[in-house]
């Protein structure tokens, strides 16, 4: 995209989307009007347009999908009562939801055959060519990407290393992957134990991999790294951990160039920065897969100590950006404050 094209595209976006782009890029973006916001965006990204472009496209896609969803899945998001009661008078704001609508639709979905999500396919397709970062909400199905990518690598006779931040998580994954791939094809390395280190899939904490890479660089190798085809780093938002984050950086810096990197992360604010960083140090440009949509829609409620439940927001789902509270939860909360702030009668 040329700067002009980008500017035109930005100009037709809603202001709220521009503000989302402005986060982390422009100090006090919320003070700026649309025109100045676009100028500031272009200025602040003068040296790195790719990040802005990919974010813009991702946000535009998000917006589209949010618009289609209510029609596509009418059962999970019951229509708000407003649909039936549209009268001649235009209302300034949508009427607030009620508890009944809020609690409607709870249940178990019909079992359906497993169909990978488009973003899962996208990640796997790109992994054939480049490093990939996946930054999607909790519980979206990142493990599927890890498993499928592992399967493909093993089929191509490459070895795979899967790292997690915690020993407990390594253990769970060891059990899970042993069931999937067969116990003889999965090994685990911890600080004090090494089981089945010649298996094509090795599970370890990130610290252990970092140590392996240092040993390899220093000339002592005890796990074969030359056939390594894929390194999966789960929960890579740990990059920002005050004590341990440095280990993720070391591991990524020293990850063998012939191996692909797959970074799986919960939603973070700037995955495009990580992608740009990887692109700057790795042999192939890194592909970013990112979205903020929750697969299972989430609603927020307020429960008063008396057991009374109310929707937290005026809308059934959780709104984006600025939110106004439901009048009932507002009332309950001020009641709570009044009750608890009263001097103790003892």
């Amino acid at each position, binding site marked *: 995209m040329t700067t002009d094209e980008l500017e035109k595209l930005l100009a037709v976006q809603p202001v709220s989307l521009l503000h989302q782009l402005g986060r982390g890029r422009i100090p006090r973006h919320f003070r700026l009007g649309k025109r100045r916001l676009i100028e500031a965006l272009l200025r602040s990204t003068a040296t790195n347009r790719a990040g802005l472009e990919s974010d813009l496209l991702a946000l535009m896609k998000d917006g589209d999908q949010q618009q289609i969803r209510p029609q596509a899945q009418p059962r999970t998001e019951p229509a708000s009562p407003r649909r039936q009661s549209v009268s001649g008078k235009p209302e300034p704001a949508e009427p607030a939801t009620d508890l009944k609508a809020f609690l409607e639709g709870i249940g178990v979905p019909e079992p359906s055959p497993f169909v990978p999500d488009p973003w899962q396919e996208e990640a796997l397709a790109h992994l054939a060519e480049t490093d990939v970062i996946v930054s999607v909400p909790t519980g979206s199905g990142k493990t599927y990407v890890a498993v499928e990518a592992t399967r493909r690598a093993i089929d191509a006779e490459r070895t795979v290393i899967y790292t997690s931040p915690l020993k407990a998580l390594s253990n769970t994954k060891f059990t899970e992957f042993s069931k999937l791939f067969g116990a003889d094809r999965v090994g685990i390395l911890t600080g004090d134990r090494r089981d089945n280190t010649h298996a094509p899939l090795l599970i370890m904490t990130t610290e252990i991999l970092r140590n392996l890479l240092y040993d390899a660089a220093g000339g002592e190798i005890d796990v074969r790294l030359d056939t390594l085809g894929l390194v999966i780093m789960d929960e890579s938002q740990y990059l920002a951990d005050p004590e341990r984050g*440095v280990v993720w950086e070391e591991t990524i810096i020293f990850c063998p160039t012939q191996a692909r990197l797959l970074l799986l992360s919960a939603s973070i*604010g700037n995955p495009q920065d990580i992608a740009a960083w990887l692109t700057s140090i790795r042999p192939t440009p890194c592909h970013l897969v990112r979205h903020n949509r929750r697969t*299972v829609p989430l609603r*927020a409620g307020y429960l008063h*100590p008396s057991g009374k439940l109310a929707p937290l*927001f005026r809308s059934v789902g959780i709104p984006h950006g600025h939110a106004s509270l439901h009048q009932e939860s507002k009332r309950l909360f001020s009641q709570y404050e009044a009750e608890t702030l009263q001097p103790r009668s003892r």
Partner: protein
Amino acid sequence: MPPSIHPVDLIAALRQHNLTPAIVFLTSRRACDDAMQAFERDQVALPPARRRNIAATLQELATQYPSIAEHPLVPIVERIGVAAHHAGHLPSWKIAIEELMRQGLLDAVFATTTLAAGVDFPARTVVITQSSVRKTRDFTDLTNSEVQQLAGRAGRRGKDLVGFAVVTPSPYIDLGVITKGLTGQPEPIDSQFSISYSMALNLLKAHPLGQIQSILARSFAQFQLNRRAETLESKLDTLHVQMEPYGPRVCTDWITQWQSFEQARKRKSQRVHPKRQEPPELTSRLHFLTPGRVVGLTRGRGIVLRQYRSRGQKSPMVTVVREAGAVTECPASTVTQVFDRMFDVQEAPAYPWCAPHSLDELTGHLSELPVRLPVLPILVQPEPEEREVALTLTDDFPCPTCSSRPACQKDHATALKLRQDVQRHQKMIHALRTGLWHRFQSRTDVLQQFGYLTPTCQLTADGEWARLIRMDHSLLITELIRAEAFTGVEPHVLAAIMSSISHDNDRPGSFPRMSPGLSTVMWQVRRLAESLAPHEDPPLLRADVAALTERWVSDPNLTWLGLCRTTTMAEGDIYRLLARTLEYLSQLHTLKGTHRGLADTADKAIKNLRRGVLEELP
């Protein structure tokens, strides 16, 4: 009305609205345990079929993890279908609860917010009762990412059509933090890169010194620093443009010349300042404590309004606006952190040193600042001696009669401020571009001083083995080895010392006493740790914690329950302590090529240590 809902009522309300299974996040382990206790007196019990299912699942898990069978919480979990899950529990117990939850056999789990990311532990509903978490000492507000990580566990794919995040108030709640967290964007993450001694050794083992700077440049840290440098560079360009009208005049460096002239003129009437003796760290900071700068103070944050010197001692002071708009004066040395964040200030010549609307604005900014802010990298360099004004007589200056005098007089203030801005920007850019390299060099300086590196930064014989010690406090450990502190010690003493080095929690408790043999070695370790303090933060070196490990390793007949009975430490904490000790010992074991005896002792300690529950997991 109680300040928060009773756990039994909470679960009843959730059941009533069909909102189970639920994860209830509570502020502390204690709160989770208390919640479980509250159910002891509750008469409600699960239908027999559910109870049998829970029992069967636990029994099956117990074949792999025997400690589950004897767990004291088993009966209540079976009876009411509610459990607690927190770091005070053994990993095997947590696995059991996770499995019960996955199978849909539990209605609720009380957990702390430390419930780790990635643990497959979803529910239909998540209950949030707090808006802040304890980090080291203080409580900090939950970030948007943290709120979303908690709420994100609600709504299981394939099992729920919709998930719920339910907020219930407690004295610990700020509703604003939670609604912002639910509706806002997750925060961008920042690099936390740091350079340890073992990193320096390992880098130098594999790469010549000449390549190190380019390797460090590949870090995410440098990537982000470069971006900040680029922003500053573009600001610097603007500053250079603004400087253009103030180029050379009759004298090339007229700004300095005029400044000296002014100083000389003032000094005629005033006493000469006493020579300031300030630590270089403080001096290099002063450049950045300019109006608008966000700083960290011992309590909270503030924005600098002006910098000045105190009347008597002439020590550097700053006036800052703090949260809630209070304007206070404090010594510049009390500034704990200088953040990479500036706001515009409309300065004013008298208290509060800025325009009233500016003060309001700054107070607003302060309250909106994110929890984490990038710190400004400041290179501490010996300052070039402040150019002493050699000429003290105004008559020696050409200025009074110079043709450019009116122009110089008029422009001096602006030009000087611009020039200082330019210099400050240049300093910041330099620090951003070279900071990592300087940090690396300060590590290698120490490693050379201790003899792990040659003067040309090659690994010495000691450096060759020391680089294999890759945990926290590596300098202390390698120095202990070199001081032969471990020669001939018993395996249990070695294990005890390693656990006191690894343990970094100061949660108090009661513990067994240590043996005289251990306390002698412990004393030596403490002394060495203190002497290394300028180079490496000393570990807590808790004797009580060491004694616990000593007990376990020295007495192979001691059972897990027996060990737990000797202390008030939670069994999950004991487990983690011993598991970490195992890792430290394993690293000592890798020194078998150079330190045969030590490696053998470590191996013996490992064998004694790894038994019972410590064998349950790889």
